[in-house]
């Protein structure tokens, strides 16, 4: 079970994620995108999901990541990510509920480059009973 005290907490990501042209190219190739000047719209999941896993698996939060399935996902893209961006990712546990033994957690992640917000993304994760 998730520690209820962690709801509303914001975890400033300590790491920074330099975005390379080859990462964008690999992601784009999977979906058949040939324009590599900007990252595809869902590229940021590469960063935010890893951060969410790290944050929610922390013993002080206590989520069992091995039973997590992805419920829904939303992106607000202020500008596309480009190669050369160095992104930081802060995450907030915005919502939590337990329904019929399943736990439903919504994590918001804000990705900044050079102090400016680039993408906000919301992942709703379901921990199966």
């Amino acid at each position, binding site marked *: 079970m998730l520690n209820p005290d962690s709801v509303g907490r914001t975890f400033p990501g300590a790491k920074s994620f330099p975005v390379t042209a080859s990462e964008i190219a690999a992601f784009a190739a999977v979906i058949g995108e040939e324009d590599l000047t*900007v990252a595809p719209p869902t590229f940021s999941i590469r960063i935010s999901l890893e951060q969410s896993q790290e944050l929610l698996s922390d013993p002080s939060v206590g989520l069992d990541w091995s039973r997590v399935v992805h419920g829904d996902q939303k992106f607000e893209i202020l500008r596309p990510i480009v190669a050369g961006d160095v992104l930081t990712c802060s995450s907030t546990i915005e919502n939590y509920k337990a329904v019929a033994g399943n736990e439903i957690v919504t994590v918001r992640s804000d990705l900044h480059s050079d102090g400016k917000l680039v993408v906000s993304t919301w992942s709703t994760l379901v921990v199966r009973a």
Partner: protein
Amino acid sequence: MIQVGDAIAERVFWIDRELLKRYADASGDQNPIHQDEAFAKSVGLPDVIAHGMLTMALAGKFISDWAGGSAAVKEFSARFTKPVIVPAGNKVDLTISATVAEVDGANIRLTINATSEGVKVLGMTKALVVKS
């Protein structure tokens, strides 16, 4: 002139195990339910399933192609209602279509449909694009 109710022609993307492996490497999501059949079955799934985010990435490709490129997509959301099941040695369809839900100058809201083998796999799928 784009109008509310306009349909965007359906397109089929094909998904196989090899694509799942490539998406796992490109996205960093190496959850074995997307690659290892024995593991997937051990946790109660019918077979290997596609990453929900791969499905969403392909839907993103569909809308960005229509709108004029990846940079056109401003908001994008989806619910993962049913898994896309990917048996070994097979490719399965991901069939995507969309409808114009709202027009405000160049800002266009789309409602997107995605099915695989006739089953709806994404729900509440919406996007805001700025069409060039």
